[in-house]
């Protein structure tokens, strides 16, 4: 039965790719039906999973290895959470897409890809073997690629898709090498036996292997979850259709990295966890500051996603996997909702630049309300879902080190700042004249899924203690400090973002401008990569190609030419020496002939003279002999 969960979307993909064009509008409902059935199946598992059971099914896949590899699916609490997120949010977003994509020429293709993505993502979270996990890991990357470059007529979309695939693949090679190392050292790739593997290394006092392997696995997560230094693909990925951004680049796929680390946490050593912590923290702060300066709605949200993923990684670095997963779940709800609301704005106005937007609250009341719920949830407004999960992480940080908690609180203020800057500038302030008439709220097929997600964004936090075993109840000092962080952020967003007040003292203004420019240019990371990595790489390929043509092939041609030359010399030798001997003999004969031929005058008298003379000589000789 477990196989049906990813199997149904996969079947939907097959159906849509083969006969999707004929199905037309109905193709969307094939996809929705498949996902909804998967969601239903997942929810049926709930009692078993919450009892702590582990359900599994597997097939023999390879016998060349020793022991043979059995790939299969398994569901435990961790993967069940992801299953619920993927199927539920996936269903909602698919429904939303019916409205968003209604005029698209490749309507059925979109839903085919979306189904394939869900199948792969479900396979990824259910995989019980590293190889199957890696396979699905790559497949979700593929779907991400296909969906980012879905509108491939736009060159930016095509470029962004390729960039996403390649950047994540850099991380994936790390994961692959990690898997290889794990197989070679521990001979075990079963995800259900990670504790055994850990004990195996600990007993042999080879925990440095664990550090290496877990770091490599984390590298895969860095790529997929867009952490520093492989974060560059996610903002560009916003070229894809907005439902894709909501599902893949906010709620599920980018969270796969967090899931992977949480899943393989037994393999992580304190050293590698410290790396996770630092990368996560750096990403959290870095992306938050960039998000403050972006003017494209979706890019703000993209950097916000990177920042939140950084926060989850930070929690993982603290070893608090359950808080991380908790935040992952709530984040999936509110971030998906934010993206869908942004999509609704784009759908209504055909604009996504903040400088061209404003005062939309009146025209899009539903969108505005839902956006506000999501923003408050993300900012950590008390009792909304984001509040609970963020508090769980802050509490873990407080246990670890107070400075970390304060840093994270600063990050929370930044979070509130950028998201309310976005909210205020979109829905409040003066309306900017737009050329396409009065914008209208989106149709019900888009609003209803958003409303459902809004419920999740508001109340998912209450599932925390039950599902994630995180600390329940309110911690009052934390409540106060995080509320203060939220209000600081909102106030600054209002003052600086909306009203354009300049709060920086005049002395620091040049520095402020410099910092602003740095953040607005995304710290020049893209440029640096272009200059220090991609440029030299392309130069290297061009150089090697020339090397191949000139040196290697040149050597071959030179050898051929050498052979040719040798042939020529040999031919000359033949002509001069061998032929010379032959011709010489002929020449000698001929010259003798020349001499002799003088006798052949052709005058008959000469011949007769010789006859007579010879006869006379003969007679004289006979005479002499006989005498």
């Amino acid at each position, binding site marked *: 039965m477990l196989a049906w969960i990813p199997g149904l979307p996969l079947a939907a993909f097959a159906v849509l790719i083969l006969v999707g064009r004929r199905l037309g509008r109905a193709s969307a409902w094939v996809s929705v039906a498949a996902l909804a059935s998967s969601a239903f199946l997942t929810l049926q598992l709930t009692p078993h999973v919450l009892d702590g059971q582990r359900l599994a099914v597997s097939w023999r896949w390879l016998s060349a290895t020793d022991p043979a590899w059995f790939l299969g699916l398994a569901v435990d609490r961790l993967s069940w959470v992801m299953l619920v997120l993927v199927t539920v949010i996936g269903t909602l977003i698919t429904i939303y897409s019916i409205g968003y994509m209604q005029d698209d020429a490749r309507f059925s293709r979109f839903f085919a890809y979306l189904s394939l993505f869900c199948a792969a993502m479900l396979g990824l979270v259910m995989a019980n073997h590293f190889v199957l996990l890696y396979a699905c890991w790559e497949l979700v990357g593929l779907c991400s690629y296909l969906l980012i470059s879905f509108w491939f007529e736009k060159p930016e979309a095509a470029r962004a898709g390729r960039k996403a695939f390649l950047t994540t693949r850099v991380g994936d090679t790390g994961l692959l090498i990690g898997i290889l190392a794990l197989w070679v050292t521990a001979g075990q790739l079963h995800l259900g036996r990670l504790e055994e593997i850990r004990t195996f290394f600990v007993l042999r006092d080879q925990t440095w292997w664990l550090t290496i392997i877990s770091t490599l696995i984390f590298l895969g997560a860095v790529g997929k979850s867009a952490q520093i230094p492989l974060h560059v693909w996610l903002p560009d990925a916003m070229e894809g259709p907005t439902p894709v951004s909501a599902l893949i680049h906010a709620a599920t796929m980018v969270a796969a990295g967090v899931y992977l680390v949480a899943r393989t946490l037994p393999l992580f050593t304190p050293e590698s966890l410290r790396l996770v912590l630092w990368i996560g923290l750096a990403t959290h702060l870095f992306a938050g500051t960039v998000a403050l300066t972006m003017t494209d709605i979706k890019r703000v949200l993209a950097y916000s996603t990177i920042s939140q993923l950084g926060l989850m990684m930070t929690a993982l670095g603290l070893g608090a996997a359950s808080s991380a997963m908790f935040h992952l779940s709530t984040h999936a709800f509110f971030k998906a909702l934010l993206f869908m609301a942004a999509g609704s704005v784009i759908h209504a106005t055909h604009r996504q630049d903040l400088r061209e937007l404003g005062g939309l609250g009146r025209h899009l009341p539903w969108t505005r309300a839902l956006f506000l719920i999501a923003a408050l949830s993300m900012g950590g407004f008390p009792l909304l879902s984001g509040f609970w999960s963020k508090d769980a992480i802050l509490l873990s940080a407080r246990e670890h080190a107070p400075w970390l908690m304060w840093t994270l609180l600063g990050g929370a203020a930044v979070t509130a700042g950028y998201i309310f800057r976005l909210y205020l500038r979109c829905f409040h302030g003066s309306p900017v004249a737009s050329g396409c008439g009065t914008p209208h709220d989106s149709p019900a097929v888009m609003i209803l899924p958003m409303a459902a997600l809004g419920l999740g964004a508001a109340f998912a936090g209450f599932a925390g203690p039950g599902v994630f075993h995180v600390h329940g109840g309110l911690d009052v000092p934390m409540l106060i400090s995080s509320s203060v962080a939220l209000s600081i952020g909102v106030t600054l967003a209002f003052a600086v973002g909306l009203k354009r007040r300049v709060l920086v003292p005049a002395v620091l203004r040049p520095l402020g401008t410099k910092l602003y420019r740095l953040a607005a240019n995304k710290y020049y990371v893209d440029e640096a990569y272009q200059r220090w990595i991609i440029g030299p790489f392309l130069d290297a390929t061009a150089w090697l190609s020339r090397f191949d043509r000139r040196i290697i092939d040149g050597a071959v041609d030179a050898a051929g030419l050498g052979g040719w030359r040798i042939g020529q010399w040999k031919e000359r030798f033949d002509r001069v020496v061998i032929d010379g001997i032959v011709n010489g003999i002929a020449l000698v004969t001929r010259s003798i*002939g020349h001499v002799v031929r003088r006798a*052949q005058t052709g*005058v008959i008298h000469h011949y007769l003279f010789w006859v007579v003379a010879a006869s006379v000589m003969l007679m004289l000789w006979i005479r002499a002999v006989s005498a």
Partner: protein
Amino acid sequence: MAPHPLLFTSCALVALGVYGILTRRNAIGILLAIELILNAASLNFILFGRWVGGVDGQAFAIFVIALAACEAAVGLAIIMGLYRTAKTVLADEVNLLKG
């Protein structure tokens, strides 16, 4: 034994023939000179045949006469052919056999 006087005749005929061969420019003349030599040979056959006895010598003489007739025919035909190609019958003006 004293040589028969006719032997001197045949010697004279040979010498005359050789002289003719070597000096005559006209091909027909050469042919006539060859006839002289052949006749000298025939005379010798008869003379020595008579000395030895039997008819062998005379038979050879008749043979030589027949042969000389054939030779004259072929020789004249060659000269005719020569005249047609070279427009001359003077032997020293023709060197078709020159190597």
